[in-house]
């Protein structure tokens, strides 16, 4: 279990795949909720879950996750409605990480990309003890 670090505006966050596994949460369900209508239709025709080995772009660590990730990252995320201002903040951040293939971002960088809430609000939302959608500070594997 990763140790708790008090995040700041310079702390990098990402979707922690290990958190989804450790908490026994249904990551596929969370991904299904993000699909666009077109992709949802396609997935419903072939509902069998398939996993893929996602490679961390910085460390080359591998996580086995649902292949819906790839669908979202390569198709849904390119549609303009994938990220919109009416969305709750945590949902927007979750989708932002899907769109950028989970490359870690600081609250300031998230703010620059989402242009909705302030960096401080983003930090307060994702930096507290409650974890939303597995969005957590990046903690080095070895410390």
């Amino acid at each position, binding site marked *: 279990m990763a140790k708790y670090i008090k995040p700041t505006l310079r702390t990098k966050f990402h979707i922690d795949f290990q958190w989804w596994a450790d908490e026994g949460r249904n990551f596929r369900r969370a991904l299904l909720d993000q699909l666009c209508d077109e992709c949802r239709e396609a997935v419903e025709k072939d509902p069998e879950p398939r996993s893929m*080995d996602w*490679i961390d*772009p910085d*460390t*080359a*660590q*591998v996580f086995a996750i649902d292949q819906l990730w790839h669908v979202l990252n390569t198709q849904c995320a390119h549609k303009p409605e994938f990220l919109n201002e009416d969305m709750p903040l945590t949902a927007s951040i979750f989708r932002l990480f899907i769109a950028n293939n989970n490359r870690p971002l600081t609250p300031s960088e998230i703010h620059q990309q989402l242009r909705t809430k302030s960096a401080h609000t983003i930090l307060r939302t994702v930096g507290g003890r409650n974890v939303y959608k597995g969005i957590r500070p990046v903690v080095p594997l*070895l410390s």
Partner: protein
Amino acid sequence: MNQRVIQTADFWKNQFQITDEVFDTLYSFIKETGEPQSIDAIGFFFVQYGIGEHERKIRSELTQGSMYLPSQDYAVDDQIIFPHMGFAVGKVVATRPGYNPIDEDFTVLEVVFEDQGELRASFAANLQTSHALLITSTDNDTTGAGTSIQKIYGQFQHIIRPKIEEALRSHDDYIEFNQTWYLKELLIEVQEGLLNIVDAAIDINNGPLNVDALIEHIDLEGSGHITEALRFSVSYCLQQDERFENVGTEENVQWYLNRLKPEYVKRPPRRLQTSEQPFDIQLLDSEQRALLAEIDDETTPVENAKPFDPGAASATFVVNYHHRRLGTLPVLPSVRHLLPQADGRTVALQLIDGRTGDTMLCWYVSRYKYILGLAEWYVKYQLPVGVVLTLTKTEIPTQLVIDFIPQRVQHEYVRVAIARDSRLIFEEKRRRLTCRYDQLMIIGEEGSEKIDALWDKAEKEDWSVPFILKQIMPELVRLSSQGAVHIKTIYSAVNVLKRCSPGLLMQELIGEESMVSMGHGYWTYRPAK
């Protein structure tokens, strides 16, 4: 992230050890050069040593296995070194085919880090696509050689420097003066008799002298060349003698005699001594907070003080009663950034009269936030309490230009403080004014000695701020045409009797029932019937 261990704060905080071995190397280094070394030069030396040690450790670890590259193939039982994870060594315990639609087929290695409590993690191998680790691995050599020592020291100086200073202090071989360290055994002897000559030279000069001038006076330079070792030795010797004090800056050491220092440099005048005057900023509304900043008192916490441009070469401010009376200047945040670094010491300054170019020896008493030595200058130009002054930097850090803004001679009515029957009263009297001043802060005085006696009484009897307010507010209200007095005027008047910060004053006004806010910074007095 392929960040080297030596580029992390954790390395310099927890892993970097100052051993006896490194001290032996430092000892030889100083002895070979024969010169004192600044703490930063020693810092570079230790960083270089720390990096060297780290590189040696890595080289020995490299023999334990092969470097991890996502493009390479590995087999079960292979030992792999992960450079981007602090050169951690892991063992491959299993492999399986891996797949994703972008990278397609590759191998997934199951790795166990035995040193990390059998931690398991999966890594990509046989990767045919590009990856950040493949790009950075060609940029960096494995040992970290070539990393800029200066860059690392600059980045972690706040961690490294205190560690080194603590270690140096615990070694009797090393001595320090002005952030520079030297070996005790290399110190050049300065005989007691020579120190008496130094004493006389400073006395005759009637001002501080730098160490080179002193060496010339005592004729210690021999061949004519003043070495750093000689400078250090003389300064170190003077530092050990209570007669002398360094009143210069870190870059320009200046020696002076303690006995010649003005009394108010040795101890702060009572009028400038402020005990802790905490106040609750939450009690102040936004208008009052703006006025708190506008009054610009050096006791106001920096976060509530008047903002200033850090790039500005000059500061403009209003002089209040106590500074005008004592011939001092307040070291406000806007003034502080014009002054040399003092770290709680006293620094001799040369203030240049902006009207005449004459220089005045003044004293920056950093611990108590004032500059002393302008009493005659204030009198010379008949500058009143509330005068607007400008202090401007020059190219020499210890030289600044002090000036006021002259204006056509005017004869104006001003509030004049008079001590009468153990009370402070105010009368309006015409005064000749030749400079720009703050109309709300200006206060004249009559009978300084009687006012001083009343100050003594107020101090002895511990007059509270509300008590003083009840004494002076009826006076000030009586003199105002609107029946209300501005906070700046109240601040100026209260400080004739007691050093009171504007924050505390505002808090007391708010808490006192008989003091009524009229808005826009004005207050009136309505005693209970």
